């Protein structure tokens, strides 16, 4: 594995605050660290046991539904409703053999807004 950690040429002009987007918005080949705060305790516990713990780094093998991510050699398929609740912070580096494209992602609204939306009735799987 030759994963380049070369910084973006324009990295100096980027804001210090890292972009945080839903996992569903990442593209194949993207790398990101994940936040699982929006998941229920049960979901967090299960994902943690499967290797997807808070702030772990993953590679996106397939974007969309399902979202397939790789942690070490493990590939996890995550349904859209769960993936939408996982917040990803894309790594500020070039993915292998590709262009950097995190700038196309629309950042998440502030956390308070999302909590309000959820409180107003977000559809649940069950």
């Amino acid at each position, binding site marked *: 594995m030759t994963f380049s950690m070369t910084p973006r040429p324009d990295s100096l002009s980027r804001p210090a605050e890292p972009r945080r987007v839903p996992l569903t918005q990442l593209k194949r080949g993207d790398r990101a660290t994940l936040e699982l705060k929006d998941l229920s305790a*049960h979901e967090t516990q*299960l994902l943690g046991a499967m290797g997807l713990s808070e702030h772990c780094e993953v590679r996106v093998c397939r974007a969309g539904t399902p979202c397939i991510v790789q942690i070490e050699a493990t590939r*996890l*398929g995550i349904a859209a409703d769960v993936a939408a609740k996982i917040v990803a912070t894309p790594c500020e580096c070039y993915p292998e053999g590709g262009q950097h494209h995190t700038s196309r992602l629309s950042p998440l609204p502030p956390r308070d807004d999302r909590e309000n939306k959820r409180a107003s009735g977000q559809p649940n799987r*069950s």
Partner: protein
Amino acid sequence: MASHTADDLSSGVASGTPVAAPRAPEQVRRVALVGNPNVGKTTLFNRLCGLRAKTANFPGSTVDARVGTCIAGDRTVEVVDLPGVYALDLDLPESRLCRDCLSGQLSECQPDAMIVVIDATNLTRNLQFLASVTRAGLPTIVAITMADIAVRKGLSIDARLIAEHVRCPVVIVSGRSGNGIDQLMQAISRAAPCRPTLREGETVNAWATRVIEESVGGSHVAGTDHDSVADRLDAAFTHPIAGSAIFAGVMALLFLAIFSLAKFPMDGIDWLFGVFGSLVTEWFGEGPLGSLLSQGIVGGLAGTLVFLPQICLLFFLLTLLEDTGYLARAAFVMDRVMCRFGLPGQAFVPLLSSHACALPGIMSTRLIPDHRDRIATILVAPFMSCSARVPVYVLLTTLLFRNQPILAGLAFTACYLIGATAALLTALLLRKSVLRGRSRPMVLELPSYKMPSIRSALYTTYDRAKTFLVNAGTMIMAICIVMWWLSAYPKADATAEAQVLRAQAESLVATNPSEAESLNSSADHIDLRNQRTHSFAGRLGSIAEPIFAPLGFDRQLTFATLTSFLAREVFASTTKILVGLDENAEGEGVIATLEQAKRDDGTPLFTPATSASLLVFFVLAMQCLPTLAVTRRESGSWRWAALQFAWMSGLAYVAAFLTYRGLHLFGVG
């Protein structure tokens, strides 16, 4: 799991998990296989135990317990294959079961030692799991699987170094090739409580990373590489359109194979037991004993074994498919549709299987990890139109639309659609009522793509077939014998009409033997019809007639419907007998005779409204006692079987009533 520290692990009592008293190596009589899902645990179990294994439920649960024996040195050791779990402390049935089993709370399966199976390509998570199970305090052997794949990825697994970090025997094994199995057997006698070398304040995650760095070369080489082939396959198999098309193709091939290949052994079983039944009747006569043996016992055996070819083929092919890694991807494709009805993607295969026969369909719900999802799928699977319904559909759609093949075809298709719609809506209703509750999040580990193991698939098939015969088969046979008794007793005397025909036949034997034979055959039919009418089952039909009258059924149709609760396909043969035909009669003559058949009051037996009502009833009703027996076995309770029977039959009754009355309202008599 990752938040545990050395202090947590040093004391099982402190962490809340009771510690089992370690046994001396020579006392090791039972070993538990523990590990994450998809680490090759079952393949290892099959290699260790071969055919010396049986499946039962763990006490007080519906989770499968596979128990077998293997030879370790000069001793026989019992091996318990615990369900694959990601962590012992999860609030999931399989985690609870593993926890209880390892801590000794389930005395029936309490092991003296455990073999923790870990995947060489996924060491971080597996080492964390190993560290967490050591809290049980049991003597441990670590079996590292998938080492060949790890080597292909450029990893070099040093078992000796890992053993130094876990302080218990570590063996590299391959369940597929058998490499390392002898060493694993020998290691059982050296099993020691695993004590991970956690430093003061070190987290399990940090420890796992350190072990990998020191014994493999670092987590950056432990399988973080980019597999473009797997990426492309995943993209295709889970694509909304391409994935669905591939899945449809795979399922079509699967069921084509099952239908075409199972047909021959099923016909063979039918033929064999037909011949055997005739021989038994010849040997023991047509008296009570002969009738019990030929119709009750031989008929019951045939009724059980006839399902076996479909069950074996389905499980063999599904196990192969699961082993390739494809099924986990397919589950996501179907999840998009199934989740709208409260079912997981994995429910699709059992529901599709139920179109062949509900029995293997219900048994294949073991693919579904969540208990509620599994029960919901079991309960709705019999709504799918199985092959046993086909003769009834053919008979009734032909009666409804004689000489109108297009309309008959549409009605036939509608039967399948009504069944599937009822199944999905019932599932939705169940998940919002009696099976309400949190679903397991649809997060699946996608195993690596690999060639399936035929050996392992054969063992699994053998195991499933044996489980079916031992558990469900005995119940099906008992039901068949009871149903035989209900329809065979009390014995009715020969009717006057039959006696007259026989007398005429006797006088014609010399001059016109063929006419004599025909008269005797007619006399037998009349007696058989009389026997069925006056048997306990027939009397039940008369008693139940008022219940079915609102659906347009008379005494004869009520009797035919009641007998078909044993198995739906009986309806066609019973109806033919009731209208004076041979039960094996086929073709246009049968339809013509049925159209002319009359009720006791002289009105036609099959009016369009009655035929439609019957058709709807047969689409929805739970008329298969073997299915109820398997539901009870798979759900672990008669309560679910009773609910399934009551709901399906109740829904069938209401739908048939509405159909009958609705058609009358529109002037269709």
